[in-house]
């Protein structure tokens, strides 16, 4: 049996006796007999560290790690600076509790304050929280933030990733907010359809920039239409793209959310990731989750503390806007280190390379026989037709290439990042040519 109980059986015996207990059963005397497991749980016997790790390695080896990744669709393969891993593995960050006791937690609190500052800089918004679970739940929480007694209908652009739309729908099954989607036209939100859908009962319009299909949306115009109808504008932006593209603040967003995974988190088969949420000053008190604020201590020195807690569940209980308690704090630290390591120029270069490489990829794939579906501007993802799609993906897989994501009947959603090289993309195009020949 593997164990982390340090007290030896004889120590445990002594302690039991000190308590006047004859055996373990005495400690559980309030548990009804019928409920006590006489023979213990139905689990296999425990093991030492070496064996347990061997089993985990065995499982890991059953997965295929693709050396060449050309798929995004919500999770992206970016270069993670080596310093990121070193920092987030530090014991005092990794194993710390939530910083409710400010006097012992200035390190964690300052790191989160720095994170909040950098998210504000990235998005142009005035205030950020300390993170929520992921981009999809961030969108759902943003919709809840915007709803009130008079306006409860939530409009979602069909340019949002399907997993985001599904998550918002599930959250609204709980809250009872009606959800409607707004269709696309030529790969971006159809603004006529949006105008038709807007009305005095609409709480917000939520869209993605760039959208799921990689297309760059007319964000400022969509924001204008939304505000004209008196609704709030929520933008879900890819954070790497914000190294280059207009900020949600520039486009008039009331709430800016997004999936933070590209900022230093490995793909990890889906998690842990991070949802960032930033807002205008007017919406500050509607933000869910923890927020760190600056103040002074009893000696007049700068200090950081969890603040605006009266919004949260531990104080408001059923009157809280959200139930969120634990967030993705260590991932927020990851984001901080990543953004600090990149700096403004590094982030801009990364975004530029993503955009450039994706455009090169589209060119060589088109030459190889995969026609682009949309003509509009894109950032680092794009949709192509894909004849012989299954055979194509199979061949790519044999060569260690994770090709675009199958979408619809006959399309693939491709992605390129700064990690992909020209040589890789040329080889990819070659493989495509061979299959289509």
């Amino acid at each position: 049996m593997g164990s982390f109980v340090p007290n030896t059986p004889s120590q445990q015996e002594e302690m039991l006796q000190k308590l006047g207990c004859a055996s373990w059963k005495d400690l559980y005397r309030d548990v009804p007999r019928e409920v006590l497991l006489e023979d213990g749980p139905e689990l296999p016997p425990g093991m030492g560290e070496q064996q347990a790790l061997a089993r985990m390695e065995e499982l890991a080896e059953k997965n295929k790690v693709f050396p060449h990744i050309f798929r995004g669709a919500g999770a992206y393969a970016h270069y993670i600076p080596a310093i990121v891993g070193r920092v987030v593995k530090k014991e005092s960050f990794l194993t710390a509790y939530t910083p409710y006791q400010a006097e012992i937690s200035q390190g964690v609190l300052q790191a989160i304050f720095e994170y909040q500052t950098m998210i504000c800089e990235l998005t142009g918004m005035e205030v950020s929280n300390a993170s929520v679970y992921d981009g999809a739940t961030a969108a759902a929480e943003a919709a809840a933030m915007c709803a009130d007694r008079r306006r409860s209908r939530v409009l979602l652009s069909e340019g949002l990733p399907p997993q985001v739309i599904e998550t918002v729908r599930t959250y609204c099954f709980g809250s009872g907010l009606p959800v409607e989607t707004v269709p696309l036209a030529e790969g971006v939100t159809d603004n006529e359809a949006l105008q038709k859908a807007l009305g005095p009962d609409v709480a917000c319009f939520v869209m993605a920039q760039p959208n799921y299909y990689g297309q760059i949306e007319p964000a400022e115009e969509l924001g204008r239409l939304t505000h004209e109808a008196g609704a709030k504008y929520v933008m879900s932006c890819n954070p790497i793209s914000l190294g280059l593209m207009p900020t949600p603040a520039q486009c008039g967003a009331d709430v800016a959310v997004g999936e933070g995974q590209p900022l230093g988190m490995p793909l990890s088969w889906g998690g842990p990731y991070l949802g960032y949420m930033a807002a205008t000053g007017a919406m500050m008190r509607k933000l869910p989750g923890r927020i760190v604020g600056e103040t002074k201590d009893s000696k007049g020195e700068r200090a950081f503390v969890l603040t605006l807690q009266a919004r949260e569940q531990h104080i408001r209980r059923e009157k809280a806007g959200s139930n969120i308690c634990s967030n993705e704090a260590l991932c927020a630290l990851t984001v901080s280190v990543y953004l600090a390591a990149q700096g403004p120029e590094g982030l801009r270069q990364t975004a530029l390379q993503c955009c450039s490489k994706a455009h090169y990829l589209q060119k060589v794939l088109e030459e190889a026989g995969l026609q682009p579906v949309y003509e509009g501007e894109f950032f680092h993802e794009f949709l192509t037709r894909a004849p012989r799609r299954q055979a194509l993906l199979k061949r790519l897989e044999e060569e260690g290439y994770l090709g675009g994501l199958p979408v619809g009947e006959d399309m693939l959603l491709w992605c390129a990042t700064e990690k992909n090289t020209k040589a890789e993309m040329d080889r990819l195009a070659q493989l495509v040519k061979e299959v289509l020949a």
Partner: protein
Amino acid sequence: MKLLMEKGYEGRALSLLGPCDVPTVQPSKTRTAPPRLPQLSETELSRHYSALARRAHGVNDGFYPLGSCTMKYNPAVNEEAASLKGFTAVHPLQPLHTVAGCLEALEETEKYLCAINGMDAFTFQPAAGAHGEFTGLLLIKAYHTHRGEGEKRNKILVPDSAHGTNPASAAMAGYQVVNLPSGPDGCVDLEALRQAAGEDTAGLMLTNPNTVGLFDKNILEITRIVHEAGGLCYYDGANLNAVMGVARPGDMGFDVVHLNLHKTFSTPHGGGGPGSGPVGCKKILEPYLPAPRFEKKDGKWQEKPCPDTIGRVRGFQGNFLVVLRALTYLLMLGREGIPEAARNAVLNANYMKAGLEDLYPMAYPGLCMHEFVMSLEKLKEETGVTALDVAKAMLDEGIHPPTMYFPLIVHEALMVEPTETETRETLDEAVETLRAIYKKAVEDPEYLKACPHRAQIGRPDEVNAARHPVLRYRPEEEKA
């Protein structure tokens, strides 16, 4: 200590990217000004975070008896498992036949958690306990809706001793919350429950042992009352550490549970997350679990049809690397280790309690489970020293304070949960420290009220922080 933004110099950078090997293309519209991120060298970056780390304190650094948080030691081997490239480098949208390892890992974890909890199925999508509560309540909602009773059954019963996430989750799931008063013994008042349970009851949320550290011995009657009224029973797994492998929530009458892997199953807290809040349920709720779900047919992994699912509660499959840490832990502890951990969690709590109860009034007499609640109400009346002051005094001694002012039903509460991973020597030392603090509080209340004296900062002005929130750094030019 300076912020990142107060360090660096224009033009400093790390050497991360190579040159672009393709023609440059950029979007036609760009941001008007670059983000004002710090410009630092790697030297400065490394030292900044070392300095921050010195001002952070984790359970692997010292004793952390936080009631209701189960701050047990986070094993090093968990980190090894969670860093394997075969897990970290896998894209969530890879074809299923390339992620057999991930699917098997979840399947194995599901099997073990079902065995420990007496459940039939688990979802790993929820990222935290509160997320799990919301998910579990949606399962209940879907169940009643399916039976045409969704509108009628619009209330969730929650004890007044419950963690704030319980009523908040119920409200998020669209329910009205009915607060059940606790009896004088800290447990569910059966009469109040009988009165409250009825045709409009969707369910009851309960944790057992409860938030005052007691096992509610009427549990079978409690769940029977709710079931008879047509409601379902939800188990908040925050306190599972007291009973895992010793008793199963499924046998107590619960239909759905959430677990906190970052509490009971040793995954690290990370300064507030990421956690993982898997939700388990009995067969009657299985059809509603979040999709996608996976099954192995003829040796091939495929998506299971889930026509009645409540849908996704997040973007992908869950906080997978966190679940892997829990799996490593489960593999190591196994059949004997799981109940051993629970038994020793209860033993250690009672041992500490026995060492303190002649000085610190205990909110409830007798044996406790894995945690106990002390009330400093009398100390406050006599000396003016509060639970907060005592907690701050512990900071000077390098011990993370216990949970303060929770549950709400105990005044000036301090909730202590040592966990099973502490040595007897640590417990003895902590007891001595707490006894010394009590004596000091009686002799010199003013000293206590000014604690901490030796911490990173003095007490922060929280009133000002909330009245005039400063939530980000602003460069000098911007400050009014």
